[in-house]
């Protein structure tokens, strides 16, 4: 498929196959999203000793459908101060990348339909992984513009937080993806799953050590704005975050995008680290087993996502940025070097691993020394300073500056 535009002629069958693939992927993703909402609510309520949705349909299965219908018929509000065009554009910018990312995920093996060899994925571009990163960076726009165009303070704060967060974690995400690419020698998702096939010890999660996978999970959770990284919404601080002003169908689109991203990121994690559709098959209906394996692994990952959401409290903003910039990015960069070293030779890998550990210890020590110095300095300053009365004392009471003094920074 090195000819993306079919420049060398294209038969009707090929067009039909592509159309069917697109429609099936689209419909399946929509239905899965609906089920994902139900799944998440059921699992969380189970973990919290509740029953969860149980009215609409068997086991409450149709609850999301009912909610969607309700949202559809609600009044579509447009705030007076909103930027009309961008306000309407933002939900689409959130949803479309969520759909498009799924296009490069290989769902199953290769089948032959009417003498045409068909890969069970919508498209297999030669730079599939970069396409994924590009779309996840486009997804920032949805959240960012939604907050800005609402013409209201809390959404703006939420969107600024979200865009800073998504850009920061994209770096760590990209670096872990590079380790996968190094090991698989290709950017195409099909080649990546083929390089992991046949034995589960060839899955990238084991071949690369657990570290890239762990970083990928953390970074992708942050990238999706899911708890514990959902500072963009932060109900307790920001009302509803970037989507406060949205109602009706547009709100539903944001909701859809969030849950769809959960599914696609689980699918991408399966593809990159768990061999995609790889697994033992049987001779009966050979094409079916890879799809079942893929679905099973993806559901397992979705469960993990829900589990994370149910058990971890939301982080503070400076903790979030600390985790991203000071821990995940250096760690993923160092691990990338180690993986590259092991690909060259074991000696190089071991040497780079040792050097990485040494550098980490030195870095940690220097940060600690600097922080201790700053803290003692701040303590001395505080002891020397005489509190002086201010006009309008209730406005600026004793502001607790310790969190700032401890980290030496806010933001960044």
């Amino acid at each position: 498929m090195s000819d993306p535009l079919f420049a060398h002629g294209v038969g009707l069958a090929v067009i039909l196959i592509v159309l069917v693939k697109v429609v099936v992927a689209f419909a399946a993703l929509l239905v899965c999203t609906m089920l994902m909402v139900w799944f998440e609510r059921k699992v969380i309520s189970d973990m919290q000793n509740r029953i969860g949705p149980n009215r609409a349909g068997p086991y409450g299965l149709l609850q999301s459908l009912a909610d969607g219908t309700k949202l559809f018929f609600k009044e579509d509000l447009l705030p007076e101060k909103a930027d009309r065009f961008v306000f309407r554009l933002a939900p689409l910018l959130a949803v479309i990348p969520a759909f498009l990312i799924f296009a490069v995920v290989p769902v199953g093996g290769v089948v032959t339909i009417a003498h045409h060899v068909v890969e069970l994925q919508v498209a297999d571009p030669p730079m599939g992984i970069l396409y994924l990163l590009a779309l996840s960076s486009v997804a920032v726009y949805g959240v960012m513009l939604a907050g800005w165009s609402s013409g209201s303070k809390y959404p703006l704060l939420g969107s600024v937080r979200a865009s800073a967060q998504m850009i920061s974690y994209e770096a760590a995400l990209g670096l872990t993806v590079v380790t996968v690419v190094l090991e698989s020698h290709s950017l195409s998702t099909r080649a990546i799953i083929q390089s992991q096939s046949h034995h589960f010890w060839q899955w990238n999660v084991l071949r690369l050590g657990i570290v890239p996978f762990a970083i990928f999970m953390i970074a992708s959770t942050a990238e999706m704005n899911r708890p514990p990284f959902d500072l963009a919404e932060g109900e307790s601080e920001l009302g509803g975050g970037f989507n406060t002003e949205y109602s009706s169908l547009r709100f539903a689109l944001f909701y859809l995008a969030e849950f769809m991203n959960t599914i696609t990121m689980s699918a991408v994690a399966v593809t990159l680290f768990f061999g995609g559709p790889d697994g033992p098959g049987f001779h009966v209906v050979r094409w079916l087993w890879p799809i079942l394996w893929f679905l099973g692994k993806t559901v397992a990952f979705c469960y993990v996502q829900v589990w994370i959401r149910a058990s971890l409290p939301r982080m503070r903003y400076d903790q979030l940025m600390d985790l991203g910039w000071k821990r995940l990015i250096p760690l993923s960069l160092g691990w990338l070097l180690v993986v590259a070293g092991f690909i060259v030779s074991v000696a190089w890998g071991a040497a780079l691993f040792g050097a990485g550990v040494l550098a980490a210890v030195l870095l940690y020590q220097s940060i600690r020394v600097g922080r201790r110095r700053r803290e003692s300095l701040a303590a001395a300053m505080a002891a020397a300073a005489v509190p002086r009365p201010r006009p309008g004392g209730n406005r600026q009471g004793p502001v607790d500056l310790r969190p700032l003094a401890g980290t030496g920074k806010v933001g960044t």
Partner: protein
Amino acid sequence: MGGATVVAAATVPDALTFAIAAVICVGGAFGVVLMRSPVHAALSLVATLFGIAVLFVEEDAQFLAAVQVIVYTGAIVVLFLFVIMLLGVDRKERVLADVFKGQRVVALVLGLMVLAEVVLLGRSRWTTGAHSATGSLEGSGSNVAKLGRALFTAYLVPFEVTSALLIVAVVGAVVLARRPDHRPVEPIEEVEVPLVPGPDDDPFGAVGTDEDAGGSTAPDETASTVPEHASSEPEHEPAEVPST
């Protein structure tokens, strides 16, 4: 155009893709210049960059297309928008007024120069929609592999020098933006905020996050928001906005 020989023949899908992408690119470029709100202009820039990415895909340069979207759309324009939102400079501008003297003449001359350059470089083969204007990829192997080999063999030194330059720029920016460490962490308390400010002394007006984010432009907007600004400013340093 004009019967020039093309390297690879352009087919109908090629021509269609080229036409649509070209319209998006040019329309976006006009939008950047003509839109009144900076945010709309930035979004038009995104459209242009996307159109160029599509053209890259059409030229079989998938890596470039992806990198174009990741770097320019995903990072640089996001940064633009970030600055626009944080600094609250998103009021509409009068696009028909000259900011600098003689701006239009200079712009016209420079534009004509760029146009001439493009025509000369493309040697009049630049609107055919052909896969390549100068020559197709030689040999086998994927586009990405070739690009990687070229970057890390023939162009290793320029590549490394560029990355060193970027690192130096980042470190420099961090150093410049950093607050000196030995100062106590209470500069906000030094600012004398009058309790009932007049309409003209707004100590945070220059950098405060503007609540008028929606870009609505009632002419008396700024005057009416000033008291609210000064009295409800949170106890943060205005300079401590999170960058990137």
